[in-house]
């Protein structure tokens, strides 16, 4: 049995409308564009997109549109190269919405590349305050810097360090840990039944994720808020990692009402039982939100 078959067997009873989930795997990942309000108004950007042949529909987020053109959509060359849009899944907007950053706050994005969340933070903060956007790999840092430049952002410092070893001279008001993960939320099935977007490798992801969530939490000021997120549905990379933090630190999950359908965090899986607080985490299933499957926990430092 391959990894994904094992996943399906384990999660059949946990994923709501499991048949809907399986059917959803056969549809391609939808394309969304986030409008960069630092450079252009949403209505003006939408008008330009229309003139570039993009059909779209509105979403629950004013700055995000869902592209409706059939595969492949035309390329909105002007909108893209002028930094008016950022292709970004609806799910990837959720951490920024949950964090609710304010201008003048100091934020850390611990695993920032290629920059979707960091640039979204910057526009939400009106390019004020401070964002430290960190990542580990040079190749990914290059993409991160290119996107920060393209979006015209001035409030961001880019650093290159292993997240677990990241240091800074002061604590942050808010932190995003969008951890590297197995990416099961992105899986799609081609016509032959083959799973696309599957990541190879045998990295011990939960060990890395536990290191990252702990470091992110330690870098928070007292009363600060951290969002831990992944694009996987795997409990070992989500609830178990959050449970680990709750055991190791004085952390507390806080509720958040997302504007899209969600399910609570899983508190019992196979033989394991997790801290009840983990139930305040949010799971987003791809067939329910018409985007990448996602997990998010909003943590406050006591």
């Amino acid at each position, binding site marked *: 049995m391959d990894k994904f078959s094992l996943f399906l067997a384990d999660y059949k009873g946990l994923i709501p409308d499991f048949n809907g989930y399986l059917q959803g795997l056969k549809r391609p990942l939808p394309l969304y564009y986030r409008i960069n309000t630092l450079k252009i108004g949403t209505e003006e950007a939408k008008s330009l997109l229309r003139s570039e*042949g993009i059909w779209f529909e509105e979403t629950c987020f004013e700055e995000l549109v869902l592209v409706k053109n059939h595969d492949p959509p035309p390329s909105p060359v002007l909108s893209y190269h*002028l930094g008016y849009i950022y292709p970004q899944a609806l799910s990837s907007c959720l951490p920024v919405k949950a964090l609710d950053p304010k201008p003048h706050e100091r934020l850390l994005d611990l695993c920032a590349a290629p920059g979707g969340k960091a640039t979204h933070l910057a526009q939400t903060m009106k390019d004020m305050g401070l964002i430290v956007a960190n990542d580990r790999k040079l190749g990914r840092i290059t993409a991160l810097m290119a996107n920060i430049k393209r979006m*015209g952002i001035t409030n961001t410092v880019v650093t290159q360090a292993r997240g677990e070893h990241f240091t800074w001279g002061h604590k942050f008001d808010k932190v995003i840990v969008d951890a590297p993960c197995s990416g099961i939320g992105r899986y799609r099935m081609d016509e032959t039944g083959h799973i696309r977007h599957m990541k190879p490798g045998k990295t011990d992801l939960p060990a890395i994720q536990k290191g990252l969530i702990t470091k992110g939490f330690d870098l928070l000021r007292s009363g600060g808020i951290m969002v831990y997120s992944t694009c996987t549905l795997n409990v070992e990379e989500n609830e178990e990692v959050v449970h680990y933090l709750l055991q190791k630190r004085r952390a507390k999950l806080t509720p958040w009402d997302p504007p899209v359908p969600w399910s609570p965090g899983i508190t019992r899986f196979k033989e394991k039982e997790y801290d009840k607080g983990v139930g305040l985490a949010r799971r987003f299933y791809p067939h329910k939100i018409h985007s990448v499957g996602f997990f998010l926990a909003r943590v406050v430092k006591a």
Partner: protein
Amino acid sequence: MPELLRPEDRLGLLAFLKDRFGMAPSSFEAYHIYAFKRQAFLFRRQPGKIDFPKSSFVRCGLPFMRLVAGYLKPTTVFLQRFGHLAWKNILHLDKAQIGRLCLEGEIDLGLESIDAQEIETPGYIIIKTGEYILGAGLILDNSRILCRFPKAMRQALVHINDL
């Protein structure tokens, strides 16, 4: 590591922007200007002092300007974001001209066209099409326009007229 520009150097850069493009220096009061690797960066002013970590620092802020062959060159990304503050040395091109500029790297518009748009030559210019600021260009020999867009953008805009 980045170094905060000395006040006289900062004034020099802002004076250039005022002189060349008419941008008011006061528009940049909310920003620090840092020098790093022979380039100037515009970085949102912070309430406290920032000690950038030596071991992990890569970059701060938005690439702003650099010195090229004796000229101060504003970056395309800076002009895309702040070019709306300018009121002079802005060259309007139609999509066909943009496509040709991106394909050939330079175009000659002829003196008449340059004079009509009141472009001061030689020097850097802001290139616009319709209401959109595309980025930086350089005008030489009174009417030769050189493309100074980033490579990927230049390649993508070659076919702008067909889009």
